[in-house]
């Protein structure tokens, strides 16, 4: 696989990052300690390089109608300025990717797929666009994405936004985006600022041309110094999103699972009048009761002991195999192990105590509601 480097690779190296391969990208795993970075995001703020994520522009008179057909949600119903979490599915209902779409104009959307899926998603969108008056343009290679996450994120950002535009930031709602002037080393640039994230905290994601990424990264670190901002790597991103009960493609989501088993039924708009790819299969899956009365569903597990479950560990009930862990770690915020797992629906009720086979030894875990962690508002 080709190794991709983000525009911020040198910044990460200088900051002492250790790297890991993620979706074909060399990404910072951690800079100091993943626990310290995790706690910083929960208590102050963390700075993430997410430039490995894809960016695909969908523009043209049919943009909304096209996305209604290509994705599982009703994207034509989003207001300009808002964003929506959705799925791109196969004809059989399997999940190709989960992604966020920002409506940037009546006929203009920015679709953001996951790193490893970006090429696949862009290709699927291009293919599905054939009968629509729409242009699909994959600009992933030109755009960097930087996230500031944590309770101090807003205060940090305001330092780089001209006073006259502060209200654009402070009044920006969750899952919305706005073009705002951001001071990158003395030059105010209009950048797309989204109040979205993958950590369970308040925070922002900023889309920036590659050439300006290093400048913005440095400006944010400077502005954030007094607010406890630290660079944060993928290791803590994973523990943060797991605590927040957010699925990770490749762990909880794949072509082998469907929205109903994954607890993402509400993301699928069977009610939209138009056809969409996977509709027939998903309607049948829902009608059969998959994820509610038959099959497996994704649940949260709280470890009753100290040892953590890990991905692919078997889940047992009275010694019988009833499921498999998809993600698991000790929760730094909560102080006990947490995991997500697909288990047979008859054993999925909150409060049920199951066992996870931890390398040959059964340890008890209790089914709990997701998310494990919810920030105080």
């Amino acid at each position, binding site marked *: 696989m080709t190794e991709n480097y983000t525009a911020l690779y040198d910044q990460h190296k200088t900051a002492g990052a250790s790297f890991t391969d993620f979706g074909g990208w060399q990404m910072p795993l951690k800079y100091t*300690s993943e626990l310290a970075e995790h706690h910083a995001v929960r208590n102050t703020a963390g700075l993430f390089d997410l430039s490995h994520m894809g960016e695909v522009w969908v523009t043209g008179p049919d943009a909304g109608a096209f996305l209604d057909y290509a994705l599982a949600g009703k994207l034509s119903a989003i207001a300009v300025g808002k964003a929506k979490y959705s799925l791109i599915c196969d004809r059989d209902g399997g999940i190709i990717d989960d992604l966020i779409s920002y409506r940037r104009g009546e006929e203009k959307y920015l679709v953001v797929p996951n790193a490893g899926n970006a090429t696949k998603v862009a290709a699927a969108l291009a293919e599905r666009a054939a009968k629509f008056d729409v242009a699909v343009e994959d600009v992933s290679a030109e755009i960097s994405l930087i996230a500031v996450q944590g309770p101090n994120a807003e205060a940090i950002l305001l330092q780089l936004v001209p006073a006259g535009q502060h209200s654009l930031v402070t009044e920006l709602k969750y899952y919305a985006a706005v073009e705002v002037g951001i001071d990158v080393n003395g030059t105010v640039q209009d950048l797309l600022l989204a109040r979205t994230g993958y950590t369970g905290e308040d925070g922002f994601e900023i889309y920036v041309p590659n050439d300006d990424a290093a400048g913005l990264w440095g400006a944010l670190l400077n502005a954030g110094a007094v607010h406890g901002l630290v660079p944060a790597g993928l*290791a803590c991103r994973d523990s943060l999103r797991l605590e927040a009960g957010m699925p990770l493609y490749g762990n909880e989501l794949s072509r082998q699972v469907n929205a109903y088993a994954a607890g993402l039924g509400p993301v699928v708009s069977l009610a939209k009048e138009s056809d969409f790819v996977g509709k027939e299969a998903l309607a049948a899956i829902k009608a059969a009761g998959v994820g509610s009365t038959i099959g497996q569903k994704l649940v949260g597990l709280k470890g009753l002991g100290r*040892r953590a479950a890990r991905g692919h560990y078997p889940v047992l009930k009275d010694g019988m195999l009833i499921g498999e862990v998809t993600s698991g770690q000790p929760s730094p915020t909560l102080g006990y192990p947490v995991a997500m797992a697909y288990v047979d629906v008859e054993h999925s009720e909150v409060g049920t105590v199951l066992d996870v086979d931890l390398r040959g030894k059964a340890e008890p875990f209790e089914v709990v509601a997701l998310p494990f962690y919810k920030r105080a508002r």
Partner: protein
Amino acid sequence: MSKVVSELKYSAEHEWVAADGAGPVGIGISAVAADALGDIVYVDLPEVGSTVTAGETCGEVESTKSVSDLYAPVTGEVTEINDGVVADPALINSDPYGAGWLFKVAVTDEGPLMSAEEYATANGGEL
């Protein structure tokens, strides 16, 4: 670069062994291994009175990201375990050769061990 302490001996599985001969020897894991594991959050040690065998697993070290087997670098009876590190496994990261020691063994047989120089050369540590 992770520190390698010159007075200790090391196994290929990254355990260190206090080199002095008389009495039970202290055992821990190297800074190289602790750094590679990440933040350690749980440690499972052999019981006092049990016998460990060089090269065989005798416990587990769990970090936020992964879990690794702990291998005995020597054969003998476990005489003491470090309760401090059981209560606060982060000591393995912060002081792997000191407060983060794991257990002591009355050695009857040593496994294949490396000198600090050999270990540092093989694993990129800094003496």
